[in-house]
């Protein structure tokens, strides 16, 4: 407890009004805690960390943390993060987005950030729904699930985020949940440390807009669902019947240089060539 209090004083903004804007039972505050703990564990200076957020419930996380924080337009967090990283590669840039933000309106930016492997960590809070606008389906809403814009059940299939980002070429892809907090802390720290583009998908329940319409009696039940259906990717792969199960852990680990490093190397080579010729 004393350790948590210390982290709160060290990393949260005192001039910002608490409590958080999030609904009771929301998992976003847990992801916020995970973000703070992973930055602390890595020993990063607050001045060197930039949080770039999009629009939606997840976007509000930026205002609470005492880093350099930029709350951008809907879906465009990764574009601003790319500009910041290219302009100052020494900064640790973390883009915090929701599922609508990262995979629907910002889907193009996501695959291109992964393809060019810009040295940014994408933290996506996936709650399967547009929460802030009141519960419309997103590109991760499971087939058959209900929302205000699919009252008869979702007819479309959901994106498999892990496969999408893997195919696009990201250096690291992982998935965690707000039930498995210790693991999420570790996944975050690993993603932030690895060069290139790294994506962490954090499953976080939205009882208010998703759970109530989809047969969950309480927020606690949604956490229990995360507990019972998610298991480590290593164990998942050994399962014979994978129905209703979801793997968590790190799926992709690639050894690549971030775009900002490749750019710097190219400049260095140019300068050496020029110097050699003179």
């Amino acid at each position, binding site marked *: 407890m004393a350790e948590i209090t210390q982290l709160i004083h060290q990393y949260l903004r005192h001039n910002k009004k608490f409590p958080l804007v999030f609904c009771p039972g929301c998992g976003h505050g847990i992801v916020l805690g995970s973000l703070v703990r992973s930055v602390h564990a890595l020993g990063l200076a607050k001045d060197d960390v930039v949080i770039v957020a999009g629009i939606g419930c997840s976007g509000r996380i930026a205002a609470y943390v005492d880093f350099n924080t930029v*709350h951008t337009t809907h879906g465009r967090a990764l*574009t601003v993060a790319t500009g*910041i990283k290219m*302009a100052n590669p020494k900064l640790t840039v973390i883009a915090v987005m929701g599922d609508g933000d990262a995979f629907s309106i910002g889907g193009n*930016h996501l695959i291109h950030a992964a393809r060019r492997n810009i040295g940014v960590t994408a933290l996506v809070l996936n709650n399967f729904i547009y929460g802030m606008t009141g519960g419309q389906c997103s590109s991760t809403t499971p087939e058959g699930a209900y929302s205000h814009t699919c009252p008869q059940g979702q007819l479309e299939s959901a994106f498999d985020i892990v496969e999408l980002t893997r195919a696009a070429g990201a250096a690291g892809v992982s998935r965690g949940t707000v039930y498995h907090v210790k693991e999420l802390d570790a996944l975050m720290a690993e993603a932030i440390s690895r060069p290139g583009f790294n994506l962490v998908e954090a499953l976080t329940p939205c009882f208010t807009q998703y759970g109530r319409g989809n047969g969950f009696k309480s927020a606690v039940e949604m956490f229990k669902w995360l507990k019972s259906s998610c298991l480590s990717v290593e164990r998942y792969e050994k399962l014979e019947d994978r129905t209703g199960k979801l793997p968590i852990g790190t799926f992709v680990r690639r050894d690549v240089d971030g775009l900002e490093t490749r750019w710097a190397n190219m400049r260095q080579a140019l300068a050496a060539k020029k110097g050699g010729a003179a």
Partner: protein
Amino acid sequence: MTAPRKKRREAFLLGNEAVVEGALAAGCTFYAGYPITPSTEIMECMAKRLPHVPDGAFIQMEDEIASMGAVIGASLAGRKAMTATSGPGFSLMQEQIGYAAMTETPLVLVNVMRGGASTGLPTSPGQGDVQQARWGAHGDHPIIVLSATDVPECVEMTVAAFNFAEKYRSPVILLLDEITAHTREKIELPEPGDFEVFSRLTPTMPPEWYKPYEETMRGVPPMPPIGSGYRFHVTGLSHDPLGFPTSRPEEVRSLTERQFRKIDRFFEDIQIVEHVDTADAEVVVIAYGCVARSARLAVKQAREAGVRAGLLVLKTLYPFPRRHVEPMLRNCRLAVVPELNMGQLSREVKRVNEGYTTVRTINRIDGQIITPSQILKEIA
């Protein structure tokens, strides 16, 4: 503006290439963009030059929205940053322009106007984006819009665009047209010291005293680069002086009013015009961009024919240079506004006119230029 003369480097450049010379002379070190005719030479030229510029960075993004995002990010990180586009890309950039205005992020956006709506006439000139440049992004926000008539002016006005962006913490749009961008002319290349170059003010107070959106004398708060020890919040939501979201009427009102005031108070600095024979003119042509070149000849020919004609070239389109236009309208019997659109800047002239004189427009939207004789016919 020009330094003492010595042997200067000369070049035979496109307007688009001259923009790059201007940008680098102004201290631009970051470019993000997406190819689009007729602006692409700006991007290609930047891709060649920036790897050799100290701290230079260049990135080709996946679309124009992303380009603006990267430019905004780079500017927040302390860079002088720019992008360039044309009509369709300009439409895509509008939301981000509004974000830059709201967060008071300096940047330069060059829009090389082509003909028509939608895909229109990609390789022909137009001036149909004038009102969009002012009002394209939603919500009330101030903006600075500049233009240029020839290749040397492409250098000068790009420098002016960066200076205004930095001085007033505002996005600045430089409106060119396909003719100006693709005309090749001999120019003297800018040398260091040719131009007065302005960089944004950074805070000098300790970080804990710094308020990123504080009311200051000039209305323009200082702006530290991200990562320099001043940790603050940037948001497109209406925000208080500390940068945090607010919906308190008093705070919302004072934010928007300050954003307008910081531009309004400095009209004299921002509004650049050129007077040609206007002192005794009874007929005045008001023009900008490539059309101003035709107007220049038309006015000269009208003078030779005995008509007291004059030309007012607008290099700043917004904030609209009312203080230059209004006295002219009071004293002439006819004002002519030739434009490559259905009548966009003429709306502003008519708004200012208030019954002083007759305002006639010449509009051409077929992808061809307005010729000197076309203007001469209206004024002589």
